């Protein structure tokens, strides 16, 4: 207890400006939101796994071995092998790369494009806003996975196309949230003051309004990450996502995994667990992050 009291004098410094000692902030986050911290931990492990895949993966994920097909989990292959004798652990490790690449890119581009559109709508208002909002509502009327499927049907399979297909359904969702934040900023006197200073529309939008909606933007970014990973897995599972032999979790759940579901359940169980763990971790991490940032949002 006393050890906890020690850093108290230092804590008092925080309200003065931005917290300068980020390790202390992280520690506080862990103490106050243990569930979020667990999510953050899983997230960190996943990022490290993806980055260090080449070093930690025990086998080549693409290497087939017909002498070791459908091996159950054991000493040689911790998570067993699939119908082609490929090591499942290695495929999951490399699959994290695919999942994170798609997840990060799609949520980043989705949230960013949405933020730009949202700010433009809020700033100009009137007819511009009405037209763009109706288009957004049309896009929102499709469930995310359906729209992504339709996009994949148009674009064809492939990693880049998966990113595009997941980005597009995210854009209208982000645009609506950012628009509502930007609308309240747009009516603040400093925006009028900026206009009275003779600034161009783009300068006012991107220099004066955009920085003020960064907090909701960051929250959206983390919130979309889990959804994007799940959508990528779904697309791959449905056979329109990334193509074989690229290691991807959704892909590992289909084909042979279904055929041998009873005799070799480890083929489906481990990638399924990975997807669940990743999405769950991102969602609780995003939620905690939002709760952490929210009071500051309100006092702005």
């Amino acid at each position, binding site marked *: 207890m006393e050890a906890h009291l020690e850093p108290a004098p230092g804590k008092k410094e925080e309200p003065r400006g931005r917290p300068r000692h980020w390790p202390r902030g992280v520690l506080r986050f862990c103490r106050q939101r243990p569930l979020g911290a667990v999510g953050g931990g899983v997230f960190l492990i996943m990022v490290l796994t993806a980055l260090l895949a080449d070093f930690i993966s025990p086998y080549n994920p693409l290497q087939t071995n017909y002498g070791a097909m459908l091996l159950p989990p054991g000493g040689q292959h911790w998570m067993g092998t699939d119908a082609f004798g490929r090591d499942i652990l290695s495929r999951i490790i490399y699959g994290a790369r695919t999942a994170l690449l798609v997840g990060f890119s799609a949520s980043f581009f989705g949230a960013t494009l949405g933020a730009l559109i949202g700010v433009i709508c809020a700033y100009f208002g009137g007819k511009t806003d009405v037209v763009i909002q109706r288009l957004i509502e049309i896009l929102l009327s499709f469930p995310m996975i359906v729209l992504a499927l339709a996009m994949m049907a148009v674009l064809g399979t492939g990693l880049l196309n998966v990113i595009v297909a997941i980005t597009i359904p995210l854009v209208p969702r982000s645009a609506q949230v950012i628009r509502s934040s930007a609308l309240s900023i747009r009516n603040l006197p*400093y925006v*009028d*003051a900026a206009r*009275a*200073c*003779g600034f161009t529309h783009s*300068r006012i939008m991107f220099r004066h309004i955009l920085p*003020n909606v960064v907090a909701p933007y960051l929250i959206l970014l983390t919130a979309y990450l889990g959804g994007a990973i799940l959508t990528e897995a779904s697309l791959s599972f449905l056979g329109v996502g990334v193509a074989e032999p690229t290691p991807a979790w959704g892909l590992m759940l289909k084909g042979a995994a279904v055929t041998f579901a009873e005799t070799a359940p480890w083929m489906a169980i481990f990638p399924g667990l990975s997807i669940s763990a990743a999405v769950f971790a991102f969602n609780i991490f995003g939620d905690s992050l939002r709760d952490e940032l929210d009071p500051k949002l309100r006092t*702005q």
Partner: protein
Amino acid sequence: MKEFQSRNRPPGILEVKDLKTYFFTPGGVVKAVDGVSFDVQEGETVALVGESGCGKSVSALSILQLVPNPPGKIVNGRIIFQGRDLRGLGGEEMRKVRGKEIAMVFQEPMTCLNPVLTIGRQLTETMEEHLNLRLAEAESRSVEFLKLVGIPDPPKRLRQYPHQFSGGMRQRVMIAMALSCNPRLILADEPTTALDVTIQAQILELLKRSTREMKVAMILITHNLGVVARYADRVNVMYAGKVVESGFSREIYHQPGHPYTLGLLHSVPRLDEPRKAKLDPIEGQPPDLANLPRGCSFRPRCRFADDLCARETPPFRDLGGDHFSSCWREELPRRR
């Protein structure tokens, strides 16, 4: 009536002629500014006085062409600034006038600065935009202007954010921003309303001193006739979207020509009267601008009103000595 100023006064730096700014709302057409004319000479301070909702601020926004549209629209009039009609300028040309030629100081310094940008950034931004200065030049100029408006330790203050400044300090920053591009005219829209009484005089002194030093003309929008007497050269008293009296401050203060001006003067406490003397408020409410009464719009609240006032709008009469008033009465009782 329309060209009343040009008879006695030379064409000024700004001439507003018969300006009409209406707001088209579902409840009807709100005539926020309905035929306002006034002019500002080089280096002069002109006050627009009146109670809330009489069209003072909308007049200022109309000059800068910043009336929110829809619902607002300038439907008539000329705004001649240095020989050019601002209404005829395109968006890009008008943008170059704003901040560069005509700068504005707003009412609420607490919310008029962007919370996420440093003071320095906000000051230099205007100069980069209008004077094409490089960042280093703009920064040294910012330091000079912060000194001018009386902010201690400018280099340090430049790196701070608005929340680290008090209300009065922020208004000083706003004034520094307004002056930084050498404008010819400053529109000060109730610059001291949101401030502490002790700070108000400082800010007004600062505005007066700096505009005099830099030979900048100023339109001072206020509802405080005390401010007007001290800081303005000319006064335009507005009521229900119209200028009802116009003249030099001394004239208006000593011999008001309109019952509304008289009422405003009587509703301000005076130090040279017995402290027990009651204030004399103007009874009633300002009229609904979407639904103005016939005749004189001040009639329902006027203690001198008669039948003529109800039938016809009074003309803008010349009372002599550049003093105009729109009232049927030739002579008002002198001040109490």
